[in-house]
């Protein structure tokens, strides 16, 4: 799994590629804990993520709590259908704003 930080308009974009599971999720969590800047909305780019385990999905919820505390928006981008289905049936989905691509984020 690779994690990089980019920017898109005012958004700070965490681009993840590869599988997010208990083996890799620690890296993502560390990245979120250390790399996020205050004051900018956060987009998590997941287009290149084919699978997320329970631990991965829980990290999304942690990130959701964290951005709420920071007072910034969070958007998930390009969530694979199977991951979205799992999020829907387990109730995770309702906590997020989800867009197909960065370009699809509506202007404020």
């Amino acid at each position, binding site marked *: 799994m690779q994690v990089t930080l980019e920017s898109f308009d005012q958004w700070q974009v965490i681009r993840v590629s590869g599988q997010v599971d*208990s*083996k890799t999720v620690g890296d993502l969590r560390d990245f979120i804990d250390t790399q996020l800047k205050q004051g900018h909305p956060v987009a998590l780019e997941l287009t290149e993520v084919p699978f997320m*385990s*329970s631990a991965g999905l829980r990290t999304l*919820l942690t990130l959701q709590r964290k951005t709420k505390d920071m007072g910034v928006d969070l958007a998930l981008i390009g969530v694979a259908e199977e991951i979205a*289905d*799992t999020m829907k*049936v*387990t*109730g995770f989905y309702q906590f997020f704003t989800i867009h197909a691509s960065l370009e699809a984020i509506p202007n404020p």
Partner: protein
Amino acid sequence: MDLERIDNLPTDTLSGFRVRPGKPLPFGVSSVPGGLNFSVYTSAGTSCTLVLFSRSEEAPLGEIRIPDHYRIGDVYSIVVYDLDYEDVEYGFRIDGPFSPEEGHRFNPENVLMDPYARVLSGREEWGVEPDWSKQYQYRSRVAFDDFDWEGDSPLEINDADLVIYEMHVRSFTKSETSGVKFKGTYAGITEKIPYLQELGVNAVELMPVFEFDEFENSRIHPDTGERLFNYWGYSTVAFFAPKAGFAASGKFGMQVDEFKQLVKELHKAGIEVILDVVFNHTAEGNERGPSISFKGLDNKIYYMLTPEGYYFNFSGTGNTLNCNNPVVRNLVLDCLRYWASEYHIDGFRFDLASILGRDPWGAPLSNPPLLESLAFDPILSSCKLIAEAWDAGGLYQVGTFPAFGRWSEWNGKYRDTARKYLKGDEGQVGEMAQRVQGSPDLYQWNGRSPATSINFITCHDGFTLADLLSFNHKHNEANGENNCDGGDDNHSWNCGAEGWTDDIGIRNLRTKQSMNALSMLMTSRGTPMVLMGDEFGRSQHGNNNAYCIDSPISWVDWSLLESNSILYKFTQALISFRHQHPCLRVNRFDHGGSKSLPSCSFHGTTPWQVNWSADSRQLAWLMTCDQEDSGIMDAVYVATNMAHYATWFDLPEIPSDYSWQLCFNTGDSQSPYLNPPPTFNDHGILVGERSVVIFQVSPRET
């Protein structure tokens, strides 16, 4: 001050794992800072080894023989650090004597499932044949149990106000006709919540959802070649784990979250969740069955054994859990507390509950400690406790189940009486009058209330309502047992032809009889329960014991909702009518009624005069109360005519400031329910052959 605890640190390294002595409670696995605490009980075992696996790997990651000084009493516990919670699977090897005649069946070659396991792997996807060559079949895993309930808590609806809907998780939405995305799963039920709300039920009772193995005793039908399953799941593998094969997310191990999401969404819709729980026996069978967990942990403690070490079989399924042993009793209590607190479950229905009242040698106890503990438990205090008050060993306790003021019962006598009265049997009027008012003959003498009685005419066991009216005899050939399985005392009547017919007269009679049955059920005091799909004529083609059938025979066919829409709308109107009328939900036998009329009175074709003789097939009841807020009288009058000819009923007199309104008339096939109900100024009504009419009163406008 954030002070790190010194017991967060490992004290030993064993088999390459950093460990320390654990805490004996809670049993099972729990997370501690940096590690996982494992705790397991064995009284006769002589040593315990914790076996750790990486997910789905056949060979263990490692084995840790738990040092004897880590044991306190009969409990081995150990904290293991640095484990990957999500990946790790575990089990135990217990050494000890193998001497079945003394009750011991230890075998350290076996890896045993944790009886407190909250998540299992090994049966993640329904119907995928397991690899039987694997030594460890049902693998214990670690649950996160961190669900975001967003303020949800159990609904605590009054027992008397419930309308229960019994369903099988897979059957409810497995059919293509269900129209849901996640067919046959917990999530599928979540998708159907708007339907349940529209129908008006406020509780669902789910047939077993604790992990079971659909492949237990699975076999191929000798004639059709179809696979027959342990479909209903009345055979528990793991009491603390929801069935993964019922979860769309089961293959990702997220069944815990998916099930909690279902409960949360049902609660949002005002619908309680009752679980059908099976504590009378386990999936380990008798001496020929597999050793999954209890057998190898402490056989003699967990099972009722004959003096020769064989298994008592009060459950009819091979073994009997020794529920009144204090250790087993605590396991049951821990389990229900877990489901009530962690899953927000509103109630439990206990399969063959009479077994839970037997002593370790099988004799019925007068004050069974398990039933008492459940009744007075602090966490379960507002949970519904519902007994199936009989067992397969001949104990029949409807009316005498040790209730401790808390337990209600599936009222099998309501079912039988209503069925006999419905088909016009002789000599039923007197008993029907008892059933309609909440069965005071069963529950008043011992200080219980009408809602003690769960009234039902059909349930998963036996015919569906449509089949009750379409078959004189069971037709269980699909079960592969030459039609020998299933009950023969169905009290059913096919209305003139066995099975499907194109005779319009017979078909109309069946629809009318369905409406008659539901009318009686919804206007009886007590708590009504309906079986999934009965509201639109679901059929199992005469199969009255479809416990092994995973096919459209068992699955709800949602296309019937359209073809039988009049029955559906009628049922919906009836349920709504019940919710509107407190007089139908009075929960006291000594209730005083309204200012001018008694709480419950019985009538015949002439008011206040019932023909109680054996050949009478007419009975009417009038229920009343004064509404708490307004003081306005609520009254419902139901006249039933189960004879094959129409009969005139004079209406009872009511105070002059009220008038009657006719709400239902099953004899009117065009408009069996009337909304809004017209004011009825006649002094009586001709009730058609095999028909029911229902009136309410309304204050006259002044």
